[in-house]
């Protein structure tokens, strides 16, 4: 299991390759990458992500450990950035390795659902107009946890 919290960019291709490389007992690797998305009109200048340094790693480890108890997984990778990112930059990625794809897919979805609502990160949008606003948590994100 590898948990990374950093402000610098990461190479999703290199991370996925390193994660999948050399495994002979894992038939499936699933990766998900989250990317800073513009409003669709070029109005987003940047996304700023604040986190709770003392708690973040522990929260991510707890979520990843829980995934490992629920599914048959060989390995889990979580990378999450903080700081300022521009549209198109990668915010975070998760990867799961499992003997079979169902476990890998489901565990990746579980990780994403819990990362959204239970990992101490907060997103602030900076519009090109100079306006800023904290992204509100969505009810559907909280509801998504109840399916697990």
């Amino acid at each position, binding site marked *: 299991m590898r948990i990374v919290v950093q402000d610098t960019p990461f190479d999703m291709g290199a991370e996925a390759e390193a994660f999948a490389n050399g495994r002979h007992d894992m038939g499936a690797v699933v990766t998900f990458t*989250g990317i800073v998305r513009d409003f669709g009109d070029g109005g987003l200048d940047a996304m700023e992500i604040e986190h*709770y340094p003392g*708690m973040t790693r522990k929260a991510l480890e707890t979520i990843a450990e829980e995934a490992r108890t629920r599914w048959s997984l060989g390995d889990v990778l979580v990378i999450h950035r903080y700081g300022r990112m521009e549209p198109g930059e990668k915010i975070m990625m998760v990867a799961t390795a499992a003997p079979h794809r169902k476990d890998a897919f489901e565990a990746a979805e579980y990780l994403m659902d819990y990362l959204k*609502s239970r*990992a*101490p*990160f907060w997103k602030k949008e900076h519009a090109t107009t100079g306006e800023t606003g*904290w992204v509100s948590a969505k009810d559907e994100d909280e509801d998504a946890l109840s399916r697990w």
Partner: protein
Amino acid sequence: MDVLYFAWVRERIGLPKEKVTTDAATVADLVAELRAREERYDLAFSDLSALRVAVDQELTDFDASIKDAREVAFFPPMTGG
């Protein structure tokens, strides 16, 4: 203990962290003490349903005990991923 604020809670109160000496038994008691201090605290804590709390870096509820706690953090619902 250390009291930490994140995101708009930090902005509304105007600082990220402060030392607080308190005899409050629970998070809710601590919130009541903070609200009585100044209007900026009162405003930040006016809707507890919009806030989350962690005691010693573990998510918990507002009725949780803070006896012997070293760190209490207040923040809005998280928006990771």
